[in-house]
Every structure is written in C-alpha cells, then in structure tokens.
C-alpha cells in the first residue's frame, strides 16, 4: 500500500490546481468537421486505408445504428446527445514510425501523466501502446514480444499486417448491432489496440494502453481486440486520464476478448477521465461495451476495474462462459463524487458445464453522486453445476448521494448454485475520529477507510496499478468530508 503522505501530497496538489491532469497539448489536429453520415464512415475508413471488407463492416454497423435508440434503462440522467454535433475523426497529422519521431510535446504530456513510455517503460517492464487522439503514436517492446510470436500493435496496424486474424475475431464477441453504443463504435472507430498471444505462450510482461482524449469535441471510439490462443496467458492494463474540458465529451469504446482452451486473460482498468467540476459542469460521457468469451474449455477471463472518473459511466464488462470448466471474474470499484453518475456492473453468461463466476463490486458514493450496480447472472440449460458468487458492497459518504443495487438472476438449470450478498454502509464519524485520534488528517483517514473498503478489488490489480489506484481514490473523494 502507498504511504499516506503520498496520497496527502496528491490531494494537496489537486486542491490548489484543480484537476491535476487537466492540461491540453497543443498539437495540430486533422479533424473532421462535426457530423455523422455514411460519408463520415467512408472518410474514416479511407483515411486509414482500410480494405473493402472493413468498410462494408463499418457501413453495416452504421445502418444498424441508424435504426437503434439510445438505451434508457440505466439509472442515469443524461441530457440528449446531439450525435451530429460531434466530430468523428481527429489524429496527429504525421504518424511517427518510431519513438524518436514522436512529437516531443506529446512525450512531455505523457511525462506529466507519469506514463512510462521511454526508459521508464523498460524499468517498469511494461510495453505501452499509447493511443493519443485515436491514433497510436508509439509501440514499445514489440521486438521482445515478437520473439515469442506475440502481436501487440495498434488496431490500424493489425488491420494492415494481420488482416486474417482481425477479420476472424472482430465482432465475434460484440457484434456490430449488439447495442446502440457498440454499433456507433463499429461504424466510426478510429483506432485502438490489438493483441494476439499464440498457443502455449505466457506473455512475460503486462501489456498496457493509455488512452487520452484531447481534441475538443472529438469523440473517442476505441476498439480493442485481444486473442489468447490455447493455453496462452496475457495480462492487459488500461489506464486513462484526460485534460480538463468545459463541455461533455462522448466516449464509446468496445473491447473484445477471446480466450481459447486453457487460456487466461486478465484485463485491468484504472479510469480517471475528467469527471466534471464540483457543480457538475463538463466531464466525459463514458459508454463502454466490454465483453470476453471463454471459448474453450477451462478458459478464464478476469476483469478488474477502478472507475473514478467520467461524468457518466455506462459500462458492464462481461463474460460469456461458453466452454466447460470456464471461469469468469469481475472485480470493480466505482466512485461517484459531486454530480457523477455511474451505472456499472457485469454480465456472467453460463453456457458450459461447471462454469463458475465471481463478482465483487464496491461502489462508493459521495457528494451528490449516484452509483448503481447492475449485474446479470444467467445460467443456461446446458450449464450443469454452474456456480456464481456475487458480493455488492456500497459505501456512502454524506447524505446527498445514492447507492443502488440491481441484480438480475436467471437460472435455467436446477443444479446451479448462485449466491448474492449485498451490503450498504456509511463511513461513520466514529471511524474517522478513531483515525484522527491516532494522528491522521481527515483526508488521510478517509482515504484509509475507503482503501480498506476496496481492498478485495485493489489486490487484484498489478502492483504499479494498485498504487496509482489508491492515489486516485483519495483524489476522487477530495472535499467529500467536511
């Protein structure tokens, strides 16, 4: 765990300067004017020099999207979004071929964010496929990974270099018409990440991608596809920070995971996009579709997320447990402070025999934040002996916030065993006073109690991520106790 003075430092730096990562890099953007029609889709595809099949795939998605409606079932209060007012493409003009060609100002930005892109990456043992304004600008450690036959590159590069793999798996977990936001993403996605781990290979380092929204009004439509072949293992980290913005920004990402027989994928996210100011102005709208398929027997997919940012979070990382003896896990911390709203959870779809799933969700609400856990556990008729354990804990700070738990359980096989536990608690004045009486400041006390509450989830994160996450928790709750 991080030393409390670190978190205090972080809190202090926030107090004085507002959102710490709220700076904007001055890079000439090659943006599309606002608007969305078939020509927009064609422009994006052409700009990326995509093959015909992918353009057709996008257009099919766009046609489906046009017939769809934005979902209304989430417990979110969202002002109507004008999809014609957003710009759907922006990218740095020249795509650098190596890290030496990367704009120094861009590197400085990453520096400020603490992203280990240069030597720090090597020290941390992390390969970074850095996504900046939708286009990948640098990929490190590719050589090392290539020796093992691991492919880790931008989505665009994957389309060019490994079209068969992309074509085989793209949309195989999240089809184009899956939902409104996934369809939008499928039509206009700009770039993202692709990883492929060949049979029997254990990826020796954490693969990580840092997303960053920069140009004003340009929505972010990332597409991520990870494939772990038979017996392969990969751990993938995704972390996000965004500069301060005064207007709402739309983000609709899609992440697809495919784990074949005996494969394991661990996907960890720390998300701290700009949540809007204390009055609820600005902030990112985050509509994400994340789904993994355990396609072979004994495959395992584990989602861990720490969601602290965004004005609106709509996100349900899910597992399709198709094979026998497959395992799905979902560990989540979601914080809403000020006027943030989160409706997040997971879906565990049990199709194979002896498939098992675990859901641990920790929701923290402060200020006027609204936090909803929404989860589905479905056991299909053939899923003999399926098991699920769900634990949903909510923590309230103050008396103007809200916590909601909406579990859906559908069991179609009598041998299934499904457990659901839920608690709601308030940080007590007694707990705060006890910590303060031992010399901890109120902010440190709060951070300590919240980190304790989230411990079961945080311990699932890789070490360096866990430290960042703990700092984020403290920062996100700044000002929430009087």
């Amino acid at each position, binding site marked *: 765990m991080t030393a409390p003075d670190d978190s205090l430092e972080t809190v202090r730096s926030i107090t004085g300067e507002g959102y710490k990562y709220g700076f904007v890099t001055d890079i000439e953007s090659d943006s599309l004017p606002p608007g969305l029609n078939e020509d927009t889709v064609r422009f994006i595809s052409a700009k990326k020099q995509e093959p015909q099949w992918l353009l057709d795939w996008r257009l099919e998605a766009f046609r489906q999207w046009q017939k769809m409606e934005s979902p209304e079932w989430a417990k979110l209060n969202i002002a109507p979004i004008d999809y014609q007012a957003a710009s759907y493409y922006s990218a740095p003009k020249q795509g650098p071929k190596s890290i030496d060609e990367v704009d120094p100002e861009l590197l400085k930005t990453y520096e400020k964010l603490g992203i280990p892109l240069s030597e720090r990456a090597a020290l941390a043992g992390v390969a970074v496929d850095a996504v900046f304004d939708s286009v990948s600008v640098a990929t490190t450690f590719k050589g090392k990974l290539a020796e093992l036959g691991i492919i880790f590159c931008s989505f665009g590069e994957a389309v060019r270099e490994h079209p068969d793999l992309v074509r085989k798996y793209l949309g195989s977990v999240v089809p184009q018409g899956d939902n409104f936001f996934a369809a939008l993403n499928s039509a206009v996605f700009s770039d993202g990440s692709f990883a492929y781990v060949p049979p029997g290979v254990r990826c020796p380092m954490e693969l990580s991608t840092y997303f960053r929204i920069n140009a004003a009004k340009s929505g972010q439509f990332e597409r991520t596809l990870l494939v772990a072949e038979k017996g392969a293992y990969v751990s993938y980290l995704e972390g996000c920070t965004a500069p301060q913005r005064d207007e709402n920004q739309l983000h609709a990402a899609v992440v697809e995971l495919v784990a074949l027989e005996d494969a394991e994928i661990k996907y960890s996210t720390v998300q701290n996009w700009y949540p809007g100011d204390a009055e609820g102005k600005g902030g990112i709208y985050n509509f994400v579709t994340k789904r993994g398929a355990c396609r072979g027997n004994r495959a395992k997919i584990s989602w861990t997320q720490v969601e602290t940012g965004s004005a609106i979070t709509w996100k349900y990382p899910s597992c399709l447990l198709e094979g026998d003896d497959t395992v799905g896990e979902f560990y989540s911390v979601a914080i809403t402070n000020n006027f943030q709203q989160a409706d997040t959870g997971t879906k565990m779809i049990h199709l194979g025999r002896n498939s098992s799933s675990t859901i641990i969700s920790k929701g923290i609400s402060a200020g006027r934040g609204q936090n909803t856990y929404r989860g589905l556990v479905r056991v299909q008729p053939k899923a003999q002996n399926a098991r699920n354990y769900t634990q949903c804990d909510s923590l309230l700070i103050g008396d103007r916030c809200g916590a909601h738990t909406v579990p859906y359980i559908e069991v179609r096989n009598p041998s299934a065993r499904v457990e659901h536990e839920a608690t709601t608690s308030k940080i007590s004045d007694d707990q705060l006073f006890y910590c303060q009486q031992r010399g*901890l400041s109120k902010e440190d006390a709060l951070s300590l109690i919240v980190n304790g*509450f989230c411990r079961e989830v945080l311990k699932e994160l890789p070490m360096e991520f866990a430290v960042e996450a703990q700092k984020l928790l403290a920062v996100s709750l700044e000002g929430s106790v009087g």
Partner: protein
Amino acid sequence: MLEIKNLHAKLTEGREILKGIDLSVKAGEVHAIMGPNGSGKSTLASVLSGKPGYEVTEGSVTYQGKDLLALAADERAREGIFLAFQYPVEIPGVNNMYFLRAALNATRRHRGQPELDAGQFLKAVRAKLKELEIGEDLLQRGVNVGFSGGEKKRNEIFQMAMLEPKLALLDETDSGLDIDALRVVSKGVNAQRAPDRAIVMITHYQRLLDYIEPDHVHVLSGGKIVMSGDKSLATELEKHGYAMLGDAAA
C-alpha cells in the same frame, strides 16, 4: 502539562454534561478519575481529545502552554494526546500494522523525526508485542475487526506504546477484561509510566488501581470534580460506594 479551568461542555444537540471541571495534571503523574455512571467521565475524555459532537461553552484547557481547544482532533493527537478508547472502532480491510505505521509516521513527521521504514517499524513493533503478550497474527488482521474485547483493549495499549504520547487518556480500559487480561494491560501501562508522560485513567472500579497505582484520585459527579485525594480515596469509595458522595455532590 494539562490545566483545565472551569470547563463546561454540552452535547452539540443536548444537555450540559460538564459543569465546571478544574484539574491540573503534571508530567510524570498518574491521575485516576472515578465516578458513577453518567457523571461525565467519558465526556471529559471526549472533549479533551476533540471528538465531534460536543461543544465547550465555558472555561479553558491549556496543554503544554497551548490552547488545546483551538486544535483539531488530529493535531491534538500529533501533539501527543492519546485516547485509549472504551470501545475501539473497527475499520474493515485496513491492516492493523499498516494503520499503526501510518499513525506513527504522521506523528513522527510532526515531531520532525524521520519516518520509520517497514523494517525499522517491524523491529520496534516486535519488542512491544512481547511486552503485551500480543500475537503477531493480530497485526495482519483488519483494525479491531473480529478482535475479542481483551484483544481490542490490548491493541489500544499496544498503540499507545508505539505512539509514545505525552498525555494518555485511558477511557475505562479495564472494562470487559478478565483478571489475566487486566494484569497484562496494567503491566503494559505501568511500563509506560515516565517522568515526561502523564496518564489520566477513567474507571468505575477501584480494581484497576490495584494494578496501576495513581498519584491522585478524583471523583467526578454531576459534571464536577467533587473530591480529590490520594490512592486512599479510591479505597474509601470501594468501601462505601458512590453513595458516600451524597453530601459532596449535592
């Protein structure tokens, strides 16, 4: 070290509980404050340590030359005031050892001392654990989570030993302890008697004073100190019960 003058305090939303306390505590002394239920003993400890929910309406408290009432609860703690809680609070998921190290380093920073790293801390911890007959497994559990009553009280005294306060307030530390646990806890407290440290014990029973011998005994009743004396006062009380206060308290 501690000078309390005409201290009046009430619940923020409620009645007056302390009605003019005068008390002077010097470094090196051990004071016992006794009294019947509802006399204001625990309120005094709460007000001195800065617990929210109380309002001082009159009087002053000077601690080491400073206006104690002007300091926030955490500042008082870092200035060396320690409260051993009557009911220690549980903090799920926070490792006991991590909690203590965070507390100790907050105090050390305040004193201008270097922070202890994990190794140094563990060394210091082990020595104190032995004294208080606490198993190391206790350190790895959540703060007070699932502790027995005796473990909670021992943990409080263990924290006190680690934090080395100037002024320790022990709020009914003997309550809920069996005779063996009482002996261990008392030994722990006695080991911390020092010329530069004052201890104020709040207790119902004379029993504790057999183990921790006070220099002064005060009887609190109806929000005032109605009697003060040496250890023999406690023995008198034990013999006659608080009924003997009758006249004095009136």
